[in-house]
Structure formats: structure tokens, C-alpha cells
């Protein structure tokens, strides 16, 4: 170490740079983490005590009461169920459809490959916009159904292309020998391609699951008046929004207003944690995949 710094006679400048760099990045670390820790601390603090303020990253009067309370709200529990359901179904269907389509697009001999590819890629640049899409959903009788959570987002061009470029990297000989053994295209997809695609499928699964879990706007737009189909994010949105004094959203229903009147800061933060927790639990495990997957999909060497 000493010899190397001597060789490049820049010790002082290098050191200063390092120190400043560590301080800057340390600051980024604090700014990113603090809000989460703060929310967690408030959620674990006694709700009447929280009003006094001054809770930072450690609860002053530790309690789990807030969490008990929110699991008594039926709309939240119902929302939790719907959110899990849409995440599981949406992710599974999304994985199957995008990998299937990606496989056909990776087959160089597929006759309509070019057409399907362009047809898919175009969707990334054009969209009908909010009103025509809404009208379409209405005409398809999807308003107020569970299907609206899953169907419109079934195939995303980005996901398909990411999986496709992964399949392109696999040796083609595998498919060829399977074919010689008499396997048809579907069997090749199911028995050979899918198992080999696990890393990229994990990435896409994460994207899909996070997207499903986090989305609230489709509930707001299409299913807002169907209490049996509202999601957790939507319920949280109503609760956070109804306390926001001059809110533009006045159609939040009575239940939410009622809850807002009785739900202090600590309860709101407990809901926020419940909404966030599943993602925080899953994402460290998938991190090694998604960094690779992102790079695969987004950077050309």
C-alpha cells in the first residue's frame, strides 16, 4: 500500500478525494435509509406518545398495539388478500406469457418472427392514452372485475425482450438435439428453455411482482367502488390522502374518513410498513439476479 502511493505521488489529493467521497456517499446512505427507519420507529411507538413528536430511529414507548389495531380493519385485511392474489396470479401469468412469446421470438426459423417482433416493439412508443384505454376496458366489461388487474399488463415488450436476449445466449445445439429426439417446439420450450432461464425469470418475476404489489391506480380508476376488490396500496392511499387537509380527492368513502379520524400517525406508519415489508423481505434474495437482468436488458456492450 505504502509503495503504491509513493509510486503515484498523489497521496494528499487522493486521500482528500476519498474522504469527501465517503462523506458524500455516507450522506446518500443516511438520506435513503432514515425515512424507512423513522417510519418503522413511529409504527412501533405508542400512538398517543407519538403525538409529542421527537421519534427518530428508535421507538420511545415500544408497543405492537398499532399492528394489532390495523389487522382489525376489515377493509385492510381484504385489501391484503386481493393484493396477494393479484401479485401471485399476475406474476405467474406474466411469466408464462412473456417467456412463451420470448421463446418464439428467439427461434431464428420462426416464420413470423420479424412481424411479431415489430408488432411488439411498437407498443413501447405508442399508447392510446388514459381515456381510450378506459373506454376499451368498459367495452370489454372488465370494469369492476379482478381480471383488470391481470389482463391489461399481461405482456410487456421490455420483459419479452429481456428474456429473449437471454435465450439467444443459450447454445442452440441443445434445442437441436432435443428436436432430433423428437421433441416438438412446445416440449423444447417447457422442458429445456424454461429450466435454463431461471435467472432471467427470477428477474422478471421480481419486476412483475413489485409492479403488481405496488400498483394502486388501476384500483382507483376501475375498481374504486368495489370494496371487495380494492387493494392494499389503494387502501393506504385513501388513508394517507383523507388526512391530507385540502385534498382534491373527495370521493374517498366514509369508512376511510372514519378511519382517518381515529388513525393517528403511528397507525398510518404501521400500515405503511405492512405495505412495504413483503418487498423488503424478497428483494435481497433476488438482488443478484436483477442487477444482471437489468444490465442484460438495458445496456448494449
Amino acid at each position, binding site marked *: 500500500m505504502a509503495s503504491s502511493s509513493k509510486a503515484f505521488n498523489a497521496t494528499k489529493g487522493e486521500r482528500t*478525494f476519498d474522504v469527501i467521497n465517503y462523506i458524500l456517499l455516507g450522506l446518500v446512505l443516511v438520506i435513503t435509509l432514515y425515512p424507512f427507519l423513522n417510519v418503522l420507529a413511529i409504527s412501533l411507538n405508542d400512538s398517543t406518545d407519538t403525538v409529542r413528536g421527537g421519534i427518530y430511529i428508535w421507538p420511545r414507548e415500544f408497543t405492537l398495539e398499532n399492528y394489532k389495531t390495523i389487522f382489525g380493519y376489515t377493509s385492510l385485511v381484504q385489501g391484503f388478500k386481493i393484493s396477494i392474489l393479484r401479485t401471485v396470479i399476475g406474476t405467474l401469468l406474466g411469466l408464462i406469457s412473456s417467456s*412463451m412469446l420470448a421463446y418464439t421470438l428467439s427461434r431464428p*426459423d420462426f416464420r413470423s418472427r420479424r412481424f411479431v417482433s415489430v408488432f411488439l416493439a411498437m407498443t413501447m412508443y405508442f399508447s392510446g*392514452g*388514459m381515456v381510450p384505454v378506459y373506454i*376499451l376496458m368498459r367495452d370489454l366489461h372488465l370494469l369492476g372485475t379482478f381480471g383488470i388487474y391481470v*389482463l391489461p399488463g399481461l405482456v*410487456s415488450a421490455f420483459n419479452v425482450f*429481456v428474456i429473449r436476449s437471454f435465450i439467444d445466449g443459450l447454445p442452440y445445439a441443445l434445442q437441436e438435439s432435443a428436436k432430433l429426439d423428437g421433441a416438438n*417446439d412446445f416440449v423444447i420450450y417447457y422442458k429445456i428453455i424454461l429450466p435454463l432461464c431461471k435467472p432471467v425469470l427470477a428477474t422478471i418475476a421480481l419486476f412483475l411482482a413489485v409492479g403488481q404489489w405496488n400498483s394502486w391506480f388501476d384500483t382507483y380508476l376501475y375498481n374504486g367502488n368495489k370494496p371487495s376488490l380494492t387493494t392494499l396500496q389503494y387502501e393506504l392511499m385513501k388513508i394517507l390522502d383523507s388526512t391530507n387537509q385540502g385534498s382534491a380527492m373527495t370521493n374517498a368513502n366514509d369508512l376511510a374518513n372514519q378511519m382517518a379520524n381515529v388513525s393517528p400517525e403511528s397507525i398510518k406508519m404501521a400500515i405503511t410498513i405492512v405495505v412495504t415489508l413483503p418487498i423488503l423481505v424478497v428483494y435481497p434474495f433476488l438482488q443478484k439476479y436483477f442487477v444482471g437482468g437489468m444490465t442484460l436488458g438495458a445496456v448494449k456492450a
Partner: protein
Amino acid sequence: METLTANSASTNESVSSVPTEREQQNKKSRWKGFRKHSNLSENESATGLPPKRPNGIWRTVVQQKYLYLMSLPFVIWLFVFNYLPLWGWTMAFQNYKPAKSFSEQKWVGFDNFVRLFHDDQFYLVLRNTLAMSVLGLIFGFIVPIVFAILLNEVRGMAFKRVTQTVSYLPHFVSWVVVAGIISNLLSMDGIINQLLVWLHLIDEPIQFMAKGTWFWGIVTASDVWKETGWNAIIYLAAITGIDKELYEAARVDGAGRFRQIWNITIPGIRSTIMVLFIMSIGHLLSIGFEKQMLLGNSLVTDYSQVLDLYALNYGIKIAHFSYGTAISMFNSVISIILLFTVNGLFKKFAKESIM
């Protein structure tokens, strides 16, 4: 995410052009394989007729029936959910009444657009959209690059890894949660106000969320907070691809850290920066509405209303479908024009393009 989504189009292009040569070879060998095993070719060889061209197409379709079965449903799906709404643009030229069929609708030409361009509110909304997009473009673009470069300069692997992992955490959290967190931080007794008072920068707490003039900054800052780490992944990957020997050579020549960054790292990721920049400009007007809707309130509407929200309020909430469509259409058309213009300019002057 938006820029990334769109960027994969270019990936697609580049990927598909690379394997073509390999594909040609594969094609030949695979054809042989098919001949050997398909019933059709056996029949053919029995009669001894050479394959006819028109039959060729149909035969491939039959041979590739599984490939068609696996893609056709999704082509139909794409048509329904992505292409049919484009047909809905016709509503912008009608006085659309939900109860009537298409042939019964009254055509009004450009009336909805004329009304739009005479609407003072529209210009206010356009101003807000442009302001927030430009701010988002500048900060949402520069900060991740700086962050990636700084992170790359860190020597301690553990610290680097922790910082990186933590940095993309907010990306995975919904805007609903982020909006809740932001309003908590910026509230009257929130940490930001406490900090500012403690540092004697202000005398009494500011009501950030109730001041329209603060809104653009709050939205931009929240966006930067949420997406910086995630957007930096691409730059970090690009930096990893730079030849390490370049740094060695520069160090031998006596270049300090800044010189290395300036002369090696930045030129090394230049093409990545360019491509992402073009993409961001193409999406300048489609900044979405989630953050504006969740962070905004009636006190700040003059600064928070953006085109998509405007379309939502007019088009769906009070069911002025035609007018709402006209707003969305204006948005899309400008975006596409922007995308092509910027792409063309870059192609001409910087020899970089995404299409």
C-alpha cells in the same frame, strides 16, 4: 423505469442484428432436421415432387404450429390492449356519447382541439408538465451518473456493496408509500423543518406541502430520492466494461482521480449516457401523474396539475371523453415528434441513435 423500458427497443435491434449470421447457418441445418422427421417431407419424397413455393408458406406454418400457438394468442392480446385504444383516438374528433354506436357519433372535426388551445387552464397544465419534466430530466439524469461514478471510486468493497444495495431500495416501494414518507418528512414538525430550524437557516417551520412554489422541487427531489440508485445500475455496468489498463496507464502518467474520471470514465460511458438521454427526451411529456396526484393537494393545483391528470379529471371523472382524448392525443403526438426529432439530431451530429 420508463427510460429503461423504451431503451430495450434498441437492445432488441442490436441483438437481432448480431445473431443473423449464426441464424442463417442454423436455418440450413435445422431444415435438414425437419425434413428427416416430418411426415410431410416423407410424403413428398415418395411422390418425388420438389417443394412448391406457395405450399412452402403453408407447410412452414403447419410445421411451426407450436410456435404459432405460442405466439398468436399474444399477438391478438397486443392488438386488443395496445392497438385498439389507438382507434379510440377517433373520439377526439367526435362529440363522443357513450351510449351511441360508432356510426351514430357526431363528428366535430378539430373542435375539441380548438377548445383545448383556447383553454387558459391548458397552458397552465402544459407549463407544469414541461417544468417538472425538464427538472426531472436534468436532475434525474445527472444525479445517477454522478452517483455511479462516485460509487465506482470507492475502494472498500463492503461499503460499496452496502451503499449500492440500500440505494435501490426506494425504487421497489410504491409511490403511495413514498408520498406518505415525503409528507411525513416535510410536515411542520418533520425532520427537515427541525433540521433547518436547528441550523438557524429558517426561524419557523415552513409548510412545504401547502406552497405551490415548492411543489416542482418536491416532486423532483422525491423522484431523485426514489430512482437514483436504480438508474445508476446501468452506468455502473457500463463503467465495469471499461478497460482497467486505461486507468493504470493514466496513473503512470500522473493523472489524479479527477483526471481519470474526466478522461476515462466519462468518455467510457458516453454512448450509454447518450442513448439514455435521447430516450428521456422522447419521454419528456409522458412523466406520468402518480407523484403529482399523490403529492399534490387542492392548495397547490396551480403547480401540480399535469397533462395526464388533466385528462383524467376531464376525460373520466366528469366523462368528457372526447376532450380527455384530445388532451392525451396532444401529449402522445408531441412525445413522438420529440423522440424522432432528437433521435434525428443525434444521428446527424453525434452519430448516436436509438432507432
